[in-house]
């Protein structure tokens, strides 16, 4: 565990020394503040669209940070050959996978916390504060979802050698899941025979990342999520994350690395 944390520290340090996060954050903040300064119609209170835009930007930024950082980790170690001095230390490959995962996940969590903090602050300054409880739930669920995404991207980085290919595929898969996974059961129901059964199988096999998206509740000032469901969602994310990490470890364990 100590060794995992050492690896984690390097990943976090890398993230805050690179410019990506700052650029995305500044862009999000800039767009939000500019939009906030626009008056579409005089003296009417309009905050929900602003919440929507900010949250959308946060979701995109967080996804970009998580996928790109996770997909880069192991390929970059191989490309820059830092993997050799690293693995020459008494660390197992499982620890490397775990350390990389924890590092990327914690780092994106930090970035996410900054983003959500900004979101809640803007809401407060706009005179339309969101529920801090629901805000926290939204952050937490989002972070849990990113755990699945990060582990998926790490697994992908061991399947596809080019990080760009892996990142692109991850974006497509995650976006596809967010948009479609929740409706696959309906589509499957309308499709007879083998295809329907296959789609139904896919519906139950895919990680339902859209569960973790409570933006609509946040935007439209609905009450917080029930804690029971909240906990179940956390467990659900943990199961998929574990599965992806085990698969990643399995692939990495046997992979020959030659200088």
């Amino acid at each position, binding site marked *: 565990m100590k060794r995992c944390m050492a690896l984690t520290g390097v990943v976090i340090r890398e993230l805050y020394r690179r410019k990506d996060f700052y650029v995305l954050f500044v862009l999000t903040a800039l767009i939000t503040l500019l939009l906030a300064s626009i008056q579409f119609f005089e003296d009417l209170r309009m905050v929900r669209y602003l919440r929507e835009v900010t949250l959308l930007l946060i979701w995109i930024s967080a996804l970009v940070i998580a996928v790109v950082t996770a997909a880069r980790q192991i390929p970059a170690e191989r490309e820059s050959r830092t993997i050799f*001095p690293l693995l020459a*230390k008494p*660390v197992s490959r499982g620890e490397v996978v775990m350390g990389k995962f924890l590092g990327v996940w914690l780092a994106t969590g930090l970035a996410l916390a900054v983003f959500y903090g900004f979101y809640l602050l803007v809401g407060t300054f706009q005179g339309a504060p969101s529920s801090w409880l629901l805000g926290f739930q939204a952050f937490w669920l989002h972070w849990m979802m990113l755990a699945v995404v990060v582990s998926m991207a790490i697994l992908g980085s061991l399947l596809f050698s080019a990080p760009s290919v892996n990142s692109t595929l991850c974006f497509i898969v995650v976006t596809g899941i967010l948009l479609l996974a929740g409706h696959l059961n309906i589509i499957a129901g309308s499709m007879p025979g083998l295809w329907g059964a296959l789609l139904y199988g896919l519906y139950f096999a895919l990680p339902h990342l859209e569960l973790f998206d409570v933006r609509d509740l946040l935007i439209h000032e609905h009450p917080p999520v029930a804690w029971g469901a909240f906990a179940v969602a956390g467990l659900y994310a943990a199961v998929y994350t574990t599965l992806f990490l085990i698969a990643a470890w399995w692939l990495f364990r046997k992979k020959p690395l030659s200088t």
Partner: protein
Amino acid sequence: MWGVEPILRIEHLRVEYPPNRRGELPKVAVKDLSLRVYPGEVFGFLGPNGAGKTTTMNVLLGFVHPTGGEAFLFGVNVKEPIARQRIGYLPEMTYYYRFLTAEEILRFYARLFGLSSVEADRRIQRLLKLVELDHACRRPLKHYSKGMQQRVGLAQALINDPDLLILDEPTSGLDPLGRMKVREIIQRLKNEGKTVFFSSHELGEVETVCDRVAIVHQGELKVEGRVEELVRSHQANLEQVFLRIIGYPTSLAA
């Protein structure tokens, strides 16, 4: 000496690389290699380019899994990560984390060995002085020259105060001054009672620092022994022995 348990033991090692294209035969990089290195020795692992030196070291470090045979460090199979607890390794060529400073890199590796932070700090200061990087230790590595990076490599190989050092061509790509410094450090380690296993094709430096050498060619061990014995039995200097073994007509070379 021969009664002592070897610190590094390789038994009938065979390594094949999968073919690049279908239908080709797998590339055999190492064939039936057996080797022992004893505590306190400086062991030169010699061979021309492509002989299989790096491949052998990759097996010792667990990067590549042997096709056949086994290898042990301190009596522990190299499959176990713990076998690497007491070794230091300098890769043939390496780039380190560009966004970290030399100090941070060393601290990171120290943590991987489970060193306490006080102990780590002490060693880091000592090593940075040893490799003469104490003035630059707070700059990220992307601003380092090649020679400086190589010295960071040497420092990280020594962070755990290892009993066995595995150095893959530690002097390649360095200027004469850099080479001399590396030789000095190897000598110093030897004086401290460390075991050094290093590969090279620079025979001059080998002759001055090595106790024993092995010469491999095309993946096979050709000869092994103490430097002076080899020179005596072949009636030639080490360079001539080497050339003869790899099938180069020594009459021309001589």
